[in-house]
């Protein structure tokens, strides 16, 4: 959806400006692995131990500054539609990045994460950047998924990989930063869906009906 918008980068004169690129990032993973918690930590710096299933939050936005580029993430949460395997394809439409999350204390969630990776490889844009996040690394004592196993899987599939903790904030910013670095920042580099020139509808885009027809 979000294509790279190179704000002001093409001004004919004056100093080069920081390029602003906007990317759609989707979260995937089994229920209760901490998808929303990761985002909440990243976007708001908050963590709630007993975070209810996400209600009312459609997506959040957060920016990451790289050397010459500002990357604005538009982060989409599954809104629980993954629970009974009913995530709508519109969810991944035009997504340039995805974080597939599993819980390091639960082997099943790792298996499901692999399925999500497959699903993305099948359904999403071929150029999508995928990161694998082994969340709840603060619970290492209850670990059921070995770091090396996940790392090997990620390497095989060309995924970024980190173990994260939304609770302690470990690697949360880092994983988003790593994604931001890997995303193509050229104007048409996103290549996702070729949505350039498509528009969102919003109130007040243009004069209301009354001004032209009445």
């Amino acid at each position, binding site marked *: 959806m979000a294509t790279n918008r190179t704000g002001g980068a093409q001004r004919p004169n004056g100093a080069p400006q920081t390029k602003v690129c906007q990317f759609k990032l989707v979260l995937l993973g089994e229920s209760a692995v901490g998808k929303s918690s990761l985002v*909440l930590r990243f976007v*708001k710096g908050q963590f709630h131990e007993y975070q209810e299933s996400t*209600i009312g939050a459609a997506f959040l936005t957060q920016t990451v500054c790289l050397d010459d580029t500002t990357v604005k993430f538009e982060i989409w949460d599954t809104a629980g539609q993954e629970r009974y395997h009913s995530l709508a394809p519109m969810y991944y439409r035009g997504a340039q990045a995805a974080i597939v999350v599993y819980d390091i204390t639960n082997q099943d969630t790792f298996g499901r994460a692999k399925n999500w990776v497959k699903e993305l490889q099948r359904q999403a844009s071929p150029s999508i950047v995928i990161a694998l996040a082994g969340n709840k690394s603060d619970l290492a004592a209850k670990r059921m998924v070995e770091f090396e196993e996940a790392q090997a899987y990620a390497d095989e599939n060309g995924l970024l990989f980190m173990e994260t903790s939304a609770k302690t904030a470990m690697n949360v910013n880092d994983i988003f930063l790593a994604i931001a670095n890997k995303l193509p920042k050229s104007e048409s580099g996103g290549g996702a869906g070729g949505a350039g020139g498509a*528009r969102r509808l*919003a*109130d007040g885009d243009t004069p209301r009906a009354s001004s*032209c027809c009445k």
Partner: protein
Amino acid sequence: MDDDLPTDFQVIVVGTGMVESIVAAACSRIGKNVLHLDSSDHYGGLWASYNFDGLQKFIKEVNSDPKRQLQVYNLSEKWYIEKDSPQEKQEDDENKTEDSKSEPSKKVWSQASFATEYRKFNIDMTPKLLFSRGPLVELLISSNIARYAEFRCVTRVLTWLNDKLMPVPCSRADVFATEAVSIVEKRMLMKMLTSIVGYNEEEMNNEFKDWNDKTFKEYLEHKGLTPNLIHYVLFAIAGGTNKMPCLEGVKECKKFLMSLGRYGNTPFLWPMYGSGELPQCFCRLCAVFGGVYCLNRPIDKVATKTVDEGKTVVTIDSKSKTLNCDHLVIGINECPKEMISPEPAESCDISKAVFITNGSIMKSEKEPLTLLRFPPLTDEDNTVTVLEVGPATGSCPKGLFVVYFITKKVKTAESDLKPYAERIFDMSGGDQLEASEKPKCLWSLFYNVRDTSAPVSGAADSVHVCCGPDAGLDFDRAVEQAEQIFKKICPGEEFLPRAPDPEEIVFEDEVPRGPEFRGDDADAEPQQ
């Protein structure tokens, strides 16, 4: 897998078509506890869009399942290209990566290359446009669901006049710029259009007082319009026929004119990745507000029972589980017959066709997005609506166009629509590289759809039956019906009030709050 599906809901919605999805979103939005099911493994029902692989499955399913043929029939698929193209095989081995940038239009397509690129297709079963100031656009904006979808403007409206395609001047600027219309004609046209914009149903203006029982064509003739102008207004703008009643024509014209100037040169928008995205956008809102989603969940039986205090509960048997709800909202194609009352009346079915071609029906500098309205070629026929969408809409790979044909059924989809297709495509199956005026048709699909768009009622007050797709150009009937159903379920409640932007949401917990969060996400602007 879904054994832990809860069983008690205020509202259960069965089917993920447009009407069902809007009702689901509206109920969930105001706090109803909603379960949304679909018997198939994808969203949309007859409103779905498919990639090329999904479409092949759909065709197979319909051909092998007599039950599906009650909805979709006379399905006929045809290829006009080779299974494999010899050139392609060599190229593929050397350079497997996207070579779409280099000479996309020169590619020789084969059935195999369609299969390789199947993911780049999004082919709609119910392609529809949105009027820029129509009820769906207003609803998407006012509910804030618009942020889930992107749109493209239809770039031109064409018609078939004097045996060729002609652009229809839409806007004031177009009217003045066009050379096809003389200055005198322009004045007449503008005057007539102004009086149409002034039309108001309630306080019937003098202008239209005596036109109740006459045709729109008679009105246009009375206004002294030349035959060319009558053609533009009657067929292309109003989408009518010679028999169109005057006031209906006036209303259609007004709708067209009122939607001009908001987003682009024409009054129309097309959703990125196709019309099938829109039900999913409403489903997402439903989920965001707590709606539970479960695809692949056929229902076996629906019954109503009265519990104590005379309250009626609808029970649904599904996969050896009984689900209970106060209100059942169900798509007409999923609804058991005994739950529909009365039987829907026989109506005029719809003839549809999809073509994949190697070029636009009329060349233009930028990739066009076209609405073409064919006047009926015979007295028996109805207007044929044609939509041509290209790669920029996410509908197909570069170098191709997807073209939809829709009309009311007379005989069969193929016999109703083929004569029109032959006017604008080269359907000979000849050499794709050969230069020709008309684009080559590479693949076609004809099918009839039963018209289930007439509103019907459920057999009980707590069963609400949603209509299927109609033959119309827009989604207006679906939106209207969804709102009516919602008002029956939730009388007095607001229909899809604006959902907050993420920045407006305060996360609250049972647990004591930590230090007050101060917005450090100043960059996060509300999504426009």
